């Protein structure tokens, strides 16, 4: 009898503890408007970016007649700033800061037979729009690994087509291509939590980071990933500069 009582007490205590932990977890909602900023540079000479022959489609080649389009695998500005690098917090986020999905819908445009932007950062489940500004038909064909839970799709966008609205279920760097214009290549960089992509000077700012210690990861499609530990204090922005060695 005694044992049974004890058992019951212990078990109910365990259940209570679990409930408490769950509730606590929900209550720890990140507040605050911290930031992490910095620049991403290329160390060394920028690799030669091959020009794109668009003669297959006269519409495309005409647009780039005076300014030939180039591959965008590694885009380094003057001063060595690396463009199209995605920065996100790979460790240290908890609660709301991790699970909150941004409400803004970024746009991935097909313009002049290239993708603009070349790399689109996205949060898991964040909605985005694929639009076309071109007077030629495209097909928008992301190619994720279906094993991650992201399922590939393939939709046509002839001139004047309405935007395609989508979102991704899991974190993954997803290549996207147009089969009609095989040079068109871009990325959906799907991460969890706040993220940023670098501008032409290599600068970035990750907003909405609550105070805490984090690991920030920088991802570049060709040069790989780098990580750094960053601390964001209340009212003081964190800072992390990255430098990728040119291949």
């Amino acid at each position, binding site marked *: 009898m*005694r*044992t049974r009582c*004890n*058992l019951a007490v*212990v*078990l109910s*205590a*365990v259940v209570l503890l679990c409930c408490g932990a769950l509730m606590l977890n929900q209550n720890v909602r990140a507040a605050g408007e911290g930031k992490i900023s910095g620049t991403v540079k290329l160390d060394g000479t920028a690799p030669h970016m091959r020009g794109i022959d668009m003669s*297959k*489609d*006269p519409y495309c080649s005409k647009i780039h007649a005076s300014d030939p389009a180039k591959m965008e695998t590694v885009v380094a500005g003057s001063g060595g700033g690396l463009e199209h690098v995605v920065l996100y917090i790979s460790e240290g986020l908890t609660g709301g800061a991790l699970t909150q999905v941004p409400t803004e819908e970024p746009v991935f445009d097909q313009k002049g037979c290239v993708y603009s932007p070349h790399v689109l950062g996205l949060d898991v489940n964040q909605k985005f729009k694929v639009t076309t500004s071109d*007077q*030629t*038909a495209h*097909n*928008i*064909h992301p*190619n994720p690994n*279906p*094993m991650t*839970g992201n*399922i*590939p*799709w*393939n*939709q*046509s*966008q*002839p*001139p*004047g*087509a*309405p935007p*395609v609205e989508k979102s991704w279920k899991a974190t993954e760097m997803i290549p996207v291509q147009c*089969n*009609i*214009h*095989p040079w068109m290549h871009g990325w959906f960089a799907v991460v969890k939590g706040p993220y940023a992509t670098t501008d032409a000077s290599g600068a970035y700012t990750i907003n909405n980071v609550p105070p805490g210690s984090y690991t920030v990861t920088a991802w570049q499609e060709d040069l790989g990933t780098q990580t750094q530990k960053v601390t964001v204090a209340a009212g003081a922005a964190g800072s992390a500069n990255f430098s990728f060695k040119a291949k």
Partner: protein
Amino acid sequence: MRTGLRKWSLWLGAAALLALPLASSAQLSTNDLAQKLNIESHIGNLTGHAKAAAMNYRRYCVGCHGELGDGNGENAVWLDPKPRNFQLGIFKCRSTPTSTLPTDTDLFDSIGRGFDRSNMPIWNTLTKQERADLVAWVKHFSPRWANEKSGDPIQIPPEPEVTPERIKAGRDVFARVQCWKCHGVQGMANGPSASTLTDDLGRPILAYNFTEGSRPKCGDTDRDIYRIFMTGLDGTPMPSFADNIKPDEAWDLVFYLRTFMSQHSKEKDMAKQLGLKPVDPNAPVPAASGQQ
């Protein structure tokens, strides 16, 4: 004694807490296979059972699709197009929108129809029940079937009467959505982008040549052709045009595509009478009719 008991009960509590998630996950993994083999398929009033298909899969399918359903059977190296990798859960011939899972009937039809211009034969030597069982078996390879439901089949309105006007309208759709970029202005698979096409795994793939007399891979009825461009062939460069071709226009396009095909048809005769010329790739793109 009492302290001993108390200690004992504490241990029990802790053990129960620890074992709870362990037990449930262990159960999941052992039940997983058994559960998968309990997968059923439903085609009309036929019910297929995965378990019943194991022997037939081993005998007839394994050579190309492989023991693990990954499309790496011993014959795969010799084949082009490559056998389907069932683990990915991506299928060409669906009645459902792009990126969704096909229905059981779609898979059943694919097995019974075979794929023209590939090494997949017509499996009508197997009974309908055997084919239904195989559909259930095919579904056990991909985790997608456990996590997702089949998509809702697209709505196909009844086929209207073919008229010369409809064929002409179909030609405008063909020009507007630029089918010719891959399929060519005469449907001969020689469009400007035809030579660089690759499938999702980066392997070269051919656009369909309407003129060579072979059946389209996903069926050759008018409804099949309608379905092909409104759902897209997932895993290939062929996109879905569902957002850009309205149902009525889709029938026009079906009629126009028939005029390319080598088989004799009403559409071919009408096009001849109309003296219909192929679309001009350099002409300005026709505006969508009444599209918002």
